[in-house]
């Protein structure tokens, strides 16, 4: 029977005169080709998206990891008493009279001693040799001596930061061609660097100062770090957490549990959804006009940054909190009311604890968004200066001028010296690590505590 049916098919098609089912006609082929093409567009779109992500991540990692390594020069510096403490009294006030310039010759002498010791042949003068060090080397020496005057007279081994050009040379960012017109470093100095590297006096290693240190002036990219701006971000996040969480939760509870259906509620809801879509820079303008120009809060203070970011994150927190309140089934409320709780008690004692994991997740995501926000911070002045010391108390952390991580990255991106670009990418790695950590915590919280009712 089956044989008969299969054999009858070919004979049946000619009757209709429209070609064979086994053989696609031109129109079907066209339609199928269109189908394949359409699907390919989709795959191409996804691929492009993934590719962009890949390029971005590769770019950040390949350009930023250099910032975590820094070139150091090991040098044994003699600290002669006749130069640093002429009276020999070890009186701190006398020692302080020797300025940074008084320490510079010591570095030259140290280099000359090094050259003699390692029998390196070079035609450079001591001054030119000292030129491969960071401009802050003499100050580092002075601080060391002032901290402990008893070292005067001895010879101490120091690790100095190499100048950013030398650092760039060892990271192959600076080449012999690119320094042709550079008055900060010469080819002979690079030869000298090669010789020192061979003798082990110059080495590249992990640079903790980039993570903990402060920003530096334009002339010393090698000394710039993220630490102080991280503190600024931390204090801003504390302000955001302290304000946005309670206010956001309170607003959501009202809208979700108590608000009657009337025009006021409508206005509030429309406002919240609109605020979520307002460009972040507008919040910066608001902060400048209200907090700084009208209320005279200190410019550049993390407190003001935190207030602005609070207003910006509130809609995010309110929207996610309302979603998690909505997810708590009405039976919980009914049960609480049934045993005699008031409406307020049913919400605060029963609904809110059950919604807490969701609220927390939303808050962390809102904080992560606030942490990466830059534009409003530019307007309230959190860029363009160097905060050199980490804040020493909570009040100074909130009120003293500081930067924030994204603002610091922007600051570095604007500077002329390409050595700062490496810092900017490195800063982005740190910033993204924070964001990834926060988002991971949010995802884990959601997975761990999410309840299906």
């Amino acid at each position, binding site marked *: 029977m089956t044989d008969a049916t299969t054999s009858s098919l070919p004979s049946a098609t000619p009757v209709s005169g429209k070609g064979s089912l086994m053989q696609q006609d031109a129109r079907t082929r066209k339609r199928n080709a269109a189908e394949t093409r359409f699907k390919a*567009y989709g795959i191409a779109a996804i691929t492009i998206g993934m590719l962009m*992500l890949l390029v*971005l991540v590769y770019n950040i990692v390949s350009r930023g990891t250099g910032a975590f390594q820094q070139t150091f020069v090991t040098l044994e510096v003699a600290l002669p008493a006749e130069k640093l403490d002429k009276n020999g009294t070890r009186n701190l006030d006398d020692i302080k009279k020797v300025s940074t310039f008084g320490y510079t010759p010591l570095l030259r002498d140290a280099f000359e001693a090094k050259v003699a010791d390692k029998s390196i042949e070079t035609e450079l003068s001591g001054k030119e040799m000292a030129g491969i060090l960071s401009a802050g080397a003499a100050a580092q020496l002075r601080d060391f001596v002032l901290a402990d005057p008893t070292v005067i007279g001895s010879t101490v081994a120091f690790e100095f930061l190499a100048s950013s050009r030398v650092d760039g040379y060892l990271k192959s960012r600076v080449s012999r061609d690119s320094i042709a017109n550079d008055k900060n470093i010469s080819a002979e100095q690079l030869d000298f660097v090669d010789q020192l590297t061979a003798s082990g006096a110059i080495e590249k290693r992990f640079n903790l100062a980039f993570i903990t240190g402060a920003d530096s002036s334009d002339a010393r990219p090698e000394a710039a770090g993220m630490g102080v701006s991280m503190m600024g971000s931390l204090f801003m996040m504390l302000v955001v957490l302290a304000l946005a969480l309670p206010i956001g939760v309170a*607003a959501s509870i009202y809208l979700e549990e*108590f608000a009657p259906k009337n025009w006021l509620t409508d206005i509030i809801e429309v406002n919240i959804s609109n605020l979520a879509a307002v460009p972040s820079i*507008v919040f910066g303008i608001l902060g400048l*006009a209200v907090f700084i120009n009208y209320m005279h809060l200190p410019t550049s203070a993390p407190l003001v940054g935190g207030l602005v970011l609070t207003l910006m994150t509130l809609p995010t927190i309110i929207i996610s909190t309302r979603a998690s309140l909505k997810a708590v089934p009405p039976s919980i409320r009914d049960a609480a009311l049934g045993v005699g709780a008031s409406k307020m008690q049913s919400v605060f004692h029963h609904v809110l604890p059950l919604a807490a994991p969701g609220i927390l997740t939303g808050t962390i995501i809102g904080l992560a968004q606030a942490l990466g926000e830059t534009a409003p911070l530019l307007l309230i002045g959190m860029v363009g200066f160097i905060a050199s010391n980490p804040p020493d108390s909570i009040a100074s952390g909130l009120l003293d001028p500081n930067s924030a991580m994204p603002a610091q990255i922007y600051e570095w991106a604007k500077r002329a010296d390409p050595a700062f670009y490496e810092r900017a990418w490195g800063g982005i790695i740190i*910033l993204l690590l924070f964001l990834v950590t926060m988002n991971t915590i949010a995802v884990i919280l959601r997975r761990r505590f999410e309840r299906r009712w």
Partner: protein
Amino acid sequence: MALGLTGYVVLAIILLTVAAFFMARSRAKSTAGGDIRLLHSLPNYYGYNAAMFAAVPAFGVLMIWLLAQPMIIENSVFKLIPERIVSEGSSRGLVMSDVRRVAEGLDIAVAQGALTDDEADNIRTEFKDVRSILGSVGVALGSNVEPEVLYAAQQYRAKTETGTFWMSVAVVTLAALGAALAIFVTNADFRARNTVERGALALLILAASLAILTTVGIVLSMLFESINFFRLHPWTDFFFGGSWAPNFRGDSDLSILPLLWGTLYISVIALLVAVPIGLFAAIYLSEYAGPKTRSAAKPLLEILAGIPTIVYGLFALLTVGPALVSIFGRGEAGLLGVDWMSGATAVLTAGLVMGIMLIPFVSSLSDDIINAVPQSMRDGSFGLGATHSETIRQVVLPAALPGIVGAVLLAASRAIGETMIVVLGAGAIAKFSLNPLEAMTTITTRIVSQLTGDTDFASPETLVAFALGLTLFVLTLGLNVLALYIVRKYREQYE
């Protein structure tokens, strides 16, 4: 000093509040004869009630006073400054900021011991060099202090001091009265829980109204400064002028049109990148991809939306821009051998990178919308013999169109308001040009550049930023409202 006194006032209110809590609670217990079953509410509610009466009115008055006092004092002090100085010193705001700085300097000088309180109140510029005294305590002044300004500053200080004193008295008294009243009414039959809950509800409403307050704050702050701007600068030039050339010596051309052109041009390029890629990605993910691909690709794409915009800005400035220059620029050394592009910052640079940023925005919104089209419509189309792509193009997409248009409009509003990418990637030259390889500037970049650094709220060059901000706000708000309207109006109802 003012801050110090205010700090003590806050501390006093907190102490009064805590005391009121415990006193009311114990009073409630004692009126019930120690048997809390006789109380109307749980004992803590009596405490909360008293604490609420002590703290809320006091803090409310404190806040209002702190906000209103500077305004009132400034108004009255301003009357002391003769016209002569105002006309020389260009404007009221400038003179007032001088007065404030001198007053602040006197405060600091007293705090550091450079002046005694009496001296600060009575010195005259005729006898003492106030500028050098203030300079010695770290308050640098731009010019010598005019006698009238110094007098105004001293009045300012005196009035602030009196105001703060009376504020402290009023607020602490209010807190004590509130606490006393609440403790007085406390007895076993008092419905403390109901009062507390009404108070809590009021706080909840207050928190919810903060959204309105923020919007009002945004609109008012920008509106006031914009009005100030239009007083100093003709509105016809702002809206219809042809060039943007701020000049801090005055006489600037401040027209929004070239900026608007740059903004729209960059946004259009961004949308040309983001909409096709995002839309096709959404179609593929919701119609073709299996659950595994979907659960892997969707979060990965959304990472693009979670990356801070400063990262994209740097990517534009340091990666995409130079890459484009090596393609379109550098003459013979370039990839195409042409010299069309001179710098890394260009419309195309910013547009491309912004497009990448917007991909997940378009794709996840469209994805939700496509998923909302009922399966029965697809089944019907398949049943009629349509291929999958024909079904998508002729059935699913038309049904989802209003939502997709809404998503694109939202993406457009995002693109117009985006700041960091254009600040770093678009350049600073305001002009009308069709060449995407040239640097152009946008509304947001100009807001940033006019408002960073030293801002002088009396010059049109600074104030124009508020007019730009207001325009931006209106523009993005309009797009959002339009998007919502389209979605609501044209949404097909399938239920």
